[in-house]
């Protein structure tokens, strides 16, 4: 169900952009209005949701970690998996964000004969998602050549490395291959593993299909049908400098590509894609486990009238001594 719905949604978006440009001449809408609107929605939406998250206090440490916490000096503690210092937390966050460490721990549960439960080694999801995110990043950074003038050195450097094997002209980018392979794997995984398929919703299929189609249109544009990239850069630089222009003779496929990207950005704040800013705010990852060192106070505690033991003893000392109970102060 979710698959058909998402497929229809993406196909509709492609057709809308294609028909709008081809038959109705809506270049201005798909090339300027939609990208600006999507960017506005993206930034306000993401900031709004992050601030919404920030409204929840997280006063206490949540040491759901896989390492020994710091306690007595002769018990060996794990400074990275259960950090008690800021540096340890930065290390843990860096590994999480750059290498998806918690996904690396993924295992697969299997029932063997017996019946007996076994946890299988399962690194493919980690590998594919790492490949996916890094190839996406490379494609994204390479796209800066459309949005900067002069083009920064690292964009050109990345291009050179990415087209290392100099296959064909225009040279084949390795990140394009990696990108399509990884998205395809992530999609196939969702539909062939029964348990994963069972829990997959349109909200899971739609972004995958959208991203696949963005990559596919880009790749077709570059290697197959060809577009006038010079005019496209005039358009994109017009967007960046806030003097939008629509040069003549840009193929429809470009507008389909950009419209799908606009949809992706507009959809971002309302979707699971928010895991990107969200990873920075993971309470189980971004707090040092220093509960034994620092006293953490819950900010929504209201003042409670307390009666400490010292006060209690002051109150009842005479009676306690009379009854033969031990007291701390005579």
């Amino acid at each position, binding site marked *: 169900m979710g698959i058909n719905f998402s497929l229809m949604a993406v196909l509709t978006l492609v057709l809308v952009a294609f028909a709008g440009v081809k038959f109705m001449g809506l270049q201005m809408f798909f090339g300027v209005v939609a990208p600006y609107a999507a960017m506005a929605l993206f930034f306000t939406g993401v900031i709004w949701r992050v601030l919404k998250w920030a409204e929840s206090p997280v006063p206490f440490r949540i040491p759901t970690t896989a390492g020994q916490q710091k306690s007595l000096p002769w018990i060996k503690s794990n400074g990275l998996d259960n950090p008690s210092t800021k540096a340890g937390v930065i290390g843990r966050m860096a590994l999480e964000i750059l290498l998806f460490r918690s996904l690396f721990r993924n295992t697969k549960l299997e029932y063997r004969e017996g019946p007996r439960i076994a946890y299988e080694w399962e690194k493919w999801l980690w590998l594919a998602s790492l490949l996916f995110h890094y190839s996406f990043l490379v494609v994204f950074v390479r796209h800066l050549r459309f949005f900067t003038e002069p083009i920064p050195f690292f964009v050109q450097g990345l291009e050179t490395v990415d087209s290392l094997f100099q296959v064909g002209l225009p040279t084949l980018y390795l990140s394009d291959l990696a990108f399509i392979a990884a998205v395809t794997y992530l999609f196939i995984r969702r539909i062939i593993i029964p348990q994963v398929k069972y829990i997959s919703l349109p909200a899971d299929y739609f972004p995958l299909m959208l991203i696949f189609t963005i990559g596919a249109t880009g790749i077709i544009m570059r290697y197959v049908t060809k*577009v006038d990239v010079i005019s496209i850069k005039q358009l994109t630089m017009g967007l960046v400098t806030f003097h939008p222009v629509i040069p003549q003779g840009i193929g429809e496929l470009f507008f389909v590509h950009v419209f799908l990207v606009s949809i992706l950005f507009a959809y971002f704040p309302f979707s699971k894609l928010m895991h990107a800013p969200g990873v920075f705010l993971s309470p189980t990852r971004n707090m040092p486990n220093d509960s034994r060192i620092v006293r953490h106070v819950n900010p929504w505690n209201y003042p409670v009238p307390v009666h400490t033991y010292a006060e209690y003893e002051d109150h009842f000392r005479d009676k306690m001594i009379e009854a033969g109970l031990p007291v701390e102060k005579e």
Partner: protein
Amino acid sequence: MKIYNGDKIIPGILIGVIILTFPLWLARGKAAATPDIKFDTPVIQKLAVKQCVLPKETMRTSHMVVLNDWRDAAVRNNTRVFTGMDGKKYDINLQNTCMECHSNKTHFCDQCHNYLGVNPYCWKCHIEPKETK
């Protein structure tokens, strides 16, 4: 609304926004120079019909495909003649065909390529036309 850990979250948001809008800061609203390609080379000026080997629109988007086909034709199949538009015949040769007409490489090929950060590696082996400045 009350924000917790604002000392970390607000700078985080700011850094994210600044990085993602980096092209805007680089451009600061100034219009960028567009490539200025010239067709005023001696060979082109002598042409009766000023045209390329294929229609202009095709060349604009697909000249690298043409070059790739030329390279394959010459190096792999030893085909040295290309029949272009209107049945006109051209020698398959980067240096002596393309660059004879487009001998103003810095005011032609490089104009577009620098604009888009394309850096064809061809000139490591093939010789660029000598240009009089």
